[in-house]
């Protein structure tokens, strides 16, 4: 057992268990806290893949910014626990879970039969691929147009959020 496998198993188990907790918790705040844990575990997995910049952005943007927003909204709405979880599972939920299992089976079937892209020189390139220098260089040269376009998406979202929460539109 090498260290990479051990780390993968620990982080992967943490990610799966916290994801299950997000789906099964009654209280929205508890679900949010488990989601933060899930994002942290995913950040660790990105580090394991040598994508350091992505790991940092994952923790900053997801665990930091987005989850703060979610917690704010939950606190504003003053929600209680969800009741329907204690009742027995409905027909709709059973068929939903069955459909999802079908989807999961298909996904796992597909990915285990995917072509193996792992080559030794690609793995050597991967060591420098995730650094902030490599990502920054790609982002501001080859992919500068999508980078500028995505800022328009953010602007539209910010304007949209303000308009949606405004009480009386002029």
């Amino acid at each position: 057992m090498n260290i990479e496998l051990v780390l993968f198993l620990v982080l992967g188990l943490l990610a799966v268990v916290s994801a299950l907790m997000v789906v099964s918790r009654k209280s929205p705040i508890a679900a949010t806290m488990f989601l933060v844990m899930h994002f942290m575990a995913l950040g660790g997995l990105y580090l394991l893949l040598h994508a350091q910049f992505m790991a940092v952005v994952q923790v900053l943007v997801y665990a930091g910014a987005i989850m703060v927003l979610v917690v704010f909204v939950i606190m504003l709405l003053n929600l209680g626990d969800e009741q329907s979880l204690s009742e027995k599972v409905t027909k709709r939920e059973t068929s939903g879970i069955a459909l999802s299992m079908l989807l999961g089976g298909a996904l796992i079937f597909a990915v285990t039969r995917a072509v193996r892209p792992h080559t030794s020189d690609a793995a050597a390139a991967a060591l420098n691929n995730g650094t902030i220098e490599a990502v920054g260089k790609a982002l501001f040269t080859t992919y500068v147009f999508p980078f500028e376009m995505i800022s328009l998406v953010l602007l539209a979202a910010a304007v949209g959020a303000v308009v949606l929460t405004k009480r009386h539109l002029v």
Partner: protein
Amino acid sequence: MLSLPIEYYLVLSAVIFLIGAVGVITRRNAIIIFMCIELMLNAVNLTLIAFSQYLGNMVGQIMVLMVMTVAAAEAAVGLAIVLALFRNKQTVYLDEVNLLKW
């Protein structure tokens, strides 16, 4: 040194995506459904980064940055919609919101 086969990451991300999908289908609380969508987005991000690193190609990571930006935009607009919904109907349970259903 990326000694694990890429299938490990792909299967893990498929499992997380699946858990997110189950959450979206079975839960009623709009905020929890929103969080389950984030779970699914993150599962896809894991796949993209795994492929990016195993192929030695930058495009996957740029794509993940775009997905994260869109997720942030979605968070802002989605939560604004939830707030507006709660102000109008005093509920965030999606089965009680059936204005467009006939």
